[in-house]
């Protein structure tokens, strides 16, 4: 777990550096080697590591717009994920998805940038597992800002009435862009939503990966045993802005500093120390994680960009005969030429 957490943290520090390249001095979202939005998850690693430790490749994870830490813990190919974020042809999605829409079918990982809309597909994966009598489970991640969304609530209901092997994980970082949790929901504990669907709900306070591990283990065990869904809320912290370039003018004085003090990684380090793991072992895990990240970034930057024409592929798996995505210049229609 520690390895994934430090990999995720370092990965995002490096992505941040790469992202800011070319965007200085005046921040321009479309400039530099990584354009578009970039949502970093520093401070949320415990929720990824604690849950995904119980999963293998056959289990499905759906992630929202802030996906890197979960992807890393789920075992998504780090090099190809990085290439995707850099918009390269050899990226996970051939440069078509980008950082919010990472798909790695080898480990059943999928993303969506639409809030809460990863929940229904996770229910579907669980439904498939049940129909095929497989013991795999599905995990849907969402933020606390997403718990008011219809797609989430409908998913809880469907999973419950069908008794499906799915775990919903709310990452409560207290912020939905500029809106603090208290302004958009009256439940301090999002796991209470479970009550309305007759499923177990549990909240883990503090971003303690070991406590998450324990709670998730119970839930996933229950799911694998055919005992249905669980809702788990994990307290995490948003150390950064919502996305890169967010000046966070809405955030009260001291709030990000407080978020940084509660650091899941430092907490994990002291847990390891208490468990008698020596510093060299910890250092070694960290060094190897950093090494892996550097290699992924180096590799990704060396990859070719897609050819513009590749934009027209992949709309269908099986393109219908005669279908064309447009009339390109040169083959444009013309009216009245013969008049």
């Amino acid at each position, binding site marked *: 777990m520690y390895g994934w957490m430090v990999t995720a943290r370092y990965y995002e520090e490096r992505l941040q550096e790469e992202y800011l390249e070319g965007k200085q001095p*005046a*921040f*321009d*979202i*479309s400039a530099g080697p990584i*354009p*578009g*939005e970039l949502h970093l998850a520093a401070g949320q690693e415990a929720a990824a590591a604690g849950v995904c430790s119980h999963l293998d490749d056959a289990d499905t994870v759906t992630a929202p717009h802030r996906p890197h830490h979960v992807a890393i813990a789920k075992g998504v190919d780090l090099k190809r994920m990085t290439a*995707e974020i850099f*918009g*390269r*042809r050899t*990226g996970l*999605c051939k*440069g*078509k*998805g*980008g950082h*919010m*829409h990472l798909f790695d079918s080898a480990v059943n990982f999928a993303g*969506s*940038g*639409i*809030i*809460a*809309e990863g929940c229904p597909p996770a229910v579907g994966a669980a439904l498939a597992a049940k129909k095929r009598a497989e013991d795999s489970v599905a995990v849907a991640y969402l933020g606390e*800002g997403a718990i*008011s*969304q*219809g*797609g989430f609530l409908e998913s809880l209901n469907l999973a419950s009435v069908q008794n499906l092997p799915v775990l919903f994980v709310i990452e409560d970082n207290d912020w*939905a*862009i*500029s*809106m603090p949790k208290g302004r*958009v*929901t009256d439940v301090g504990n999002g796991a209470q939503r479970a009550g309305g669907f007759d499923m177990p709900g549990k909240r883990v306070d503090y971003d303690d990966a070991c406590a998450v591990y324990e709670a998730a283990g119970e839930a996933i065990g229950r799911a694998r045993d055919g005992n249905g869904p669980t809702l788990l809320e994990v307290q995490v912290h948003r150390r950064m802005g919502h996305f890169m*370039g967010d*000046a966070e*003018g*809405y955030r009260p004085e001291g709030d990000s500093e407080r978020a940084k003090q509660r650091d899941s990684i430092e907490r994990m380090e002291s847990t390891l120390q208490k468990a008698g793991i020596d510093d060299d072992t910890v250092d070694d895990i960290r060094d190897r994680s950093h090494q892996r990240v550097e290699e992924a970034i180096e590799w990704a930057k060396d990859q070719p*960009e*897609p*050819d*513009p024409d*590749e*934009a*027209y592929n992949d*709309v269908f798996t099986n393109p219908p005969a005669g279908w064309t*995505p*447009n*009339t*390109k*210049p040169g083959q*444009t*229609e*013309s*009216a*009245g030429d013969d*008049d």
Partner: protein
Amino acid sequence: MVEADEPETAETTGERETTMSRAMVSAIASEMRDSDDVFVMGEDVADYGGIFDSTDGLLEEFGREKIMDVPISETGFIGAAVGAAQAGMRPIAELMFADFFGVGMDQIYNQMAKNTYMSGSTVNVPMVLMTAVGGTYNDAAQHSQTLYGTFAHLPGMKVVVPSTAADAKGLMHTAIRDDDPVVYMFHKRLMGIGWMPAPDGPKTSVPEDDYTIDFGEADVKREGDDVTVVTLGLHVHRALEAADDLAEEVDVEVIDLRTLVPLDTETVLESVRKTGRLVVVDEDYHSFGLSGEIVARATEGALADLSAVRRVTMPDVPIPYARPLEQEVNPGREDIIEAVQSTTE
């Protein structure tokens, strides 16, 4: 949230140069001062001032009762705006990106758009649904669409797409005062936000006093005799640049539709009767949409005058992330130039 250029000092004419977002905000603020029935609901509209600055500064003047941050629940809050409008208020709801329409679409096209008709006009829905559209910054398929055609296709909603600050303000005043639901679609790239530089053009001189712009009046943004380019939003500016580049060889007329519902067919017809050549430029998908509609109206109304028609559109592919891919599909100045030239070959 880097601060955009602030308006320069007021001039004696009562006009000042301002960004499109400031122009929209000033219309909303003025309508709110005039009527207690106007209020704003949306995600991040209060402290953040709207992700694209569409409500920037309103919280300070009007407070949280009127500038309401709402839960991420588009069905809930867009539907609540419908209900409040039916109760006689004039809500402005913001759907952060047009791409998210799916989440609240029932409230948009089965309630907001249809209740007037289904009730035989015994209720009406005087609300504005404001939403950001457009790509050009590599945000991929779920955050880059314009969807002009989708909204304009569904009867019952007026659809507005400003391209300059002056238009944005006048059209916003009209939208808020309108007794019907209005979808107000603003292109992110035109807003004048610090982190997404705008092309030259959307920042215009804007009268400080209130004024309205009637819906259904396209604006001829550039006059010309040889080829008519019909477009809207960001692509007005791309078309104008293309027209300037072509000035030596072709005299291009650029029509900014400004509203899709109602659509000013007459101005388009008048122009193609003069030029005989039509190019439609649209950041929306190619098939079953706006470009087909304009071509259809032109051929219905002026077939005999037409010698060439071209469409420059987003092809029928979800918008890709990587820069070379997005640049390939998003209609650029070069594509417009090529299309215009090909009509005169």
